[in-house]
């Protein structure tokens, strides 16, 4: 007992920096970055959304109240962009869910080289969207792209020009997005599927359950929470889609693929520099995403409770 206090003072003398100080040394840089890059812009843009500020003029921001919001919400063009975004999100998330879940069901069976195949399938997800956009542009190219060739067109004459045709361009972007992100859905589903114990299926086999029952009553309920998380993530991302579309079509032809985020970029930086109005639009998108996420999360909790 006598050695104990002496020992502890000795150690305190050696250690100049307290635990508390070390904690702050590690936290401060992160905190500063977060405040500068996230927190400050969040509140500053909220303020700007109520002003007529433009980033290239020297005029100070003038408070205009809800004028920006009113103007955006009364603009039929804006509603069209939202509809396009909604259609894009619905199509691409829907297809990603189907294809991702399907691939997971296939890859769940272990076969020779299934590990390698899984890794290869995950590659698109790791690429930069801008790069993906650029090379899919080449794939869709009407004169030398491989996409039309695979569809059976051996000559560019009469073959569709995917990115330049109004009603095909959105599908072209959807297909690319599905190619890129189905692996993400697959990955989450696969981890859900692998967590289902074999004995449940064995019990079902002994109970003479049909394979439809096994899927409906065992597989689906067990994977559902993870599947919904995948869908939630993908929906949020789809509503914010920008770089892929910008790289492929730039919103065109006309405004066929003009998603809200693309329009937002144009409004804020391309020639218009309407910073205040763009901030207002960003907040509208944020509110829409929060609303959609809430619906998902409520359903997720319902499923978890059984």
């Amino acid at each position, binding site marked *: 007992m006598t050695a104990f206090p002496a020992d502890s003072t000795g150690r305190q003398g050696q250690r100049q920096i307290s635990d508390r100080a070390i904690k702050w040394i590690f936290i401060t840089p992160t905190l500063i970055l977060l405040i500068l890059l996230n927190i400050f812009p969040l509140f500053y843009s909220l303020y700007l959304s109520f002003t007529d500020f433009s980033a290239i003029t020297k005029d100070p921001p003038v408070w205009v109240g809800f004028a920006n919001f009113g103007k955006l919400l009364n603009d039929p063009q804006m509603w069209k962009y939202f509809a396009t975004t909604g259609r894009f999100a619905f199509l691409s998330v829907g297809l990603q869910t189907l294809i991702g879940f399907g691939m997971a069901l296939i890859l769940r069976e272990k076969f020779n080289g299934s590990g390698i195949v899984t890794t290869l399938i995950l590659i698109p997800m790791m690429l930069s969207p801008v790069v993906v956009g650029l090379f899919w542009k080449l794939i869709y190219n009407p004169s030398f792209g491989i996409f039309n060739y695979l569809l059976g067109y051996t000559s560019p004459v009469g073959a569709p020009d995917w990115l330049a045709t109004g009603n095909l361009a959105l599908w072209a972007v959807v297909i690319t997005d599905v190619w890129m992100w189905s692996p993400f859905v697959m990955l989450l589903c696969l981890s859900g599927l692998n967590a289902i114990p074999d*004995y449940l299926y*064995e019990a079902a*086999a*002994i109970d*003479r*359950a049909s394979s439809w029952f096994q899927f409906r*009553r065992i597989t689906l*309920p067990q994977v559902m929470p993870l599947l919904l998380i995948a869908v939630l993530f993908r929906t949020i991302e789809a509503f914010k889609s920008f770089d892929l579309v910008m790289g492929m079509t730039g919103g065109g032809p006309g405004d066929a693929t003009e998603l809200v985020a693309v329009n937002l970029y144009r409004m804020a930086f391309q020639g218009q520099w309407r910073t205040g109005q763009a901030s207002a639009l960003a907040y509208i998108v944020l509110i829409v995403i929060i609303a959609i996420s809430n619906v998902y999360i409520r359903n997720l909790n319902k499923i978890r409770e*059984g």
Partner: protein
Amino acid sequence: MANVELRGISKRFRGVTALRDVSFTVADGEFFVLLGPTGAGKTTTLRVIAGLEKQDGGSVLFDGGAVDSRSPAERDVAFVFQQYSLYPTMTVFDNLAFPLRSPLRKLDNTEITRRVTEAAEKLRIGHLLQRKTERLSGGEMQRVSIGRAIVRQPRVFLMDEPLSNLDAKLRESLRVELEHIQKKQQSTTLFVTHDQVEALTLADRIGVLREGKLIQVAAPRDIYDKPANLFVAQSVGTPRINLFPSTYSDGSVRVADSPIALPFSQNGLPVHFTLGVRAEDVTPGQGDQRGEIALVEPLGVETILHIRSGDVTLLSMVSGMTHYRLGEAISFGIDQDRLHFFDAKGDRIDVEQGR
């Protein structure tokens, strides 16, 4: 109900032999227990019978007819897994009713309700029928799993350590209930366990498995009183059987490194062998062996005494609490009609009791 016969079943997994030439028969209405340590091949045997695993050699017969080519559903067995294999997101009632709703058997709803209610009553889970299975305790879940097996009248019940995930008290009460149900229904049951108490209490007959080989098949009484080898002798009985290297000379069995000598007149014994004595056959306080108390373990119902004699320690079991104290010198006796002898390979030496 049916009888089940295994003929020369063998099974290998990736170069590991799980079962070698296992053959036995479970009679109609019999409660047969497979006993063995982890990895002995008990579960594999069950899975082969159920059709969940395909054997590499040999044949499984139900009522004399081979079922090897039939799927698990066609074999009409009930399987209770060690893990509670309940369907999530379904109520207890739906879980129990599920095997009856299979399109392969056409039962109307009143019959299904009747059978489910009956099974639930037997297992005392009647009040849980509308509950979702996620909200049940472990004991309740395993009752439901057993219930799902007994609602139908399968040809065979297969149970894979159904009690081992439960706490001690529940295990005991469910064990008693299982026995009641089996005796009432006269169902052919194959029960797998590593717990010798379960085996001794439940079984009509026990099969002892070790490393994929069936070592002995006999009634619990014979497994206990006439173990075929050292492994079986050590597998049943708490406390464990006393085993000593011994010799036979001048008409006495002499325990090595100890003054213990038992006059024993007969011929079949070799010079060197292993002597086995059950703890309850060592009686302190009477007899002409000498030793001292090395440890006292009072368990309430019984007391286990560790008696030191020379360089060996014997376990002795006496009923109730005792007055013996540590270090006390005592005399003790060994019941000479209940000695077990094993040869150098560990196999039982049967000796005629001629004194």
